[in-house]
């Protein structure tokens, strides 16, 4: 029997290369996966909340300090505080990496199965990035609002003259976009941290993944 070699194998390539895991399906899949490991997801999200809230509170307060004209010569945000915020964010990034790695390890078999069903690497990548992204959005939203709220509570209930109070309120109002920035930062951080675990998951060899026992 003669075989066409390359020619034959090319006959298989009949479809265009655009099979995408529909985003709606992928999101609901990821949400279910998070729900299944809810406690760990909560812990990760709390760490994101704390890091982001710290940053958000710090930035909001600095705006207020500037607005009420602080003492001359002092920094609005002492640089060491900013450093603490950066370190807090790094720590929560490491927390996300850790949590996602555990999620990947636990799901070796699941990943192997999905691959035998015809998933491409990109589909697996998508699932894990969405999972990280969801945690980032939730943590970032709560954290951003919480930090802003802390700043609000700290300053608004202080006894001030009417004029200073109005300036504080004005500064708080102007700080609202900071919540958005914190969210974006949180999502970026989560996606970056999920990248390595997601890549590892995507590159798993299905045979080894299926053989793996948790």
């Amino acid at each position, binding site marked *: 029997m003669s075989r066409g070699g390359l020619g034959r*194998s090319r006959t*298989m390539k009949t479809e265009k290369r655009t099979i995408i895991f529909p985003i709606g399906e992928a999101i609901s899949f990821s949400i279910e996966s998070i729900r299944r490991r809810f406690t760990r997801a909560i812990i990760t999200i709390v760490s994101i909340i704390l890091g982001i809230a710290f940053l958000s509170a710090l930035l909001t307060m600095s705006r207020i300090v500037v607005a009420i004209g602080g003492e001359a010569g002092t920094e609005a945000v002492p640089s060491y505080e900013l450093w603490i915020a950066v370190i807090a964010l790094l720590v929560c990034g490491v927390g996300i990496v850790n949590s996602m790695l555990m999620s990947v390890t636990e799901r070796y*078999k699941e990943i192997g*199965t999905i691959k*035998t069903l*015809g998933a491409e690497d990109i589909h697996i990548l998508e699932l894990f990035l969405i999972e990280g992204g969801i945690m980032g959005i939730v943590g970032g939203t709560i954290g951003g609002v919480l930090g802003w709220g802390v700043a609000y509570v700290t300053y608004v209930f202080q006894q001030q003259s009417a004029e200073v109070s109005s300036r504080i309120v004005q500064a708080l109002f102007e700080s609202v976009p900071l919540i958005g920035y914190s969210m974006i930062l949180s999502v970026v951080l989560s996606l970056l941290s999920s990248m390595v675990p997601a890549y590892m998951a995507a590159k798993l*060899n299905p045979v080894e993944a299926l053989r793996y026992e948790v």
Partner: protein
Amino acid sequence: METSLRYEYTVETEDLAKNYVMGPVTVKALDGVSVKIRRGEYLSTMGPSGSGKTTFFNMIGGLDRPTRGKVYIDEVDIAKLDAYELAWLRARKIGYIFQTFNLIPVLTAVENVSLPMIFAGVGREERLERATQLLERVGLGERLDHKPAELSGGQQQRVAIARALANNPVIVLADEPTGNLDLHTGLDIITLLKTLNAEKGVTIITATHDLKMIDVSDRIFWIRDGRLERIETRKEVSVRPVGRE
């Protein structure tokens, strides 16, 4: 489906071999297996544990690359396929059934069956419709929205069978499909596989220790130490005392 009708042999292997290097030792898991498997055949691969059944399986399922030799599925040499084409092959041409069912725990029965159709690019409506039909076909029409944890072992394996058939594959590969089931449920699963084999003309290849499987198999491959020891038809097996290898 239609394209496969042109080919007499769904699976062909030529001198298939796989070595695993474990430190200083090279294990020959598979050592020169050449077979031809006809379209629509029900074939069982039998042999002791560690004989190379699962390795053989992974090779013809396109899950692992052979060290030597070739695998043709519908006359396509799967070693020549790139990652995308392999995924395409797994999605459309091959259905897998596992000993441990391997359903996705976070998805319902109907979602599990729909999953391979997502990777084949089938639209949502059609996915749900086909998944429902398949689940009804395997007798789980009442359990569409149950998650795997809410199903018995036999029911989970039925979902897995429905999932394997989702994209009308030409081959269903079943690795110890009855290994985790009791005698009675195992027999139900074997009967179901045989019925679907006859009904849909899908080639079924199983790796098994289960001697009940002999009754429905057209041919049996006996594998030992990575080599194909002999091929027997059902008739040849039944004249011998069953169970002797």
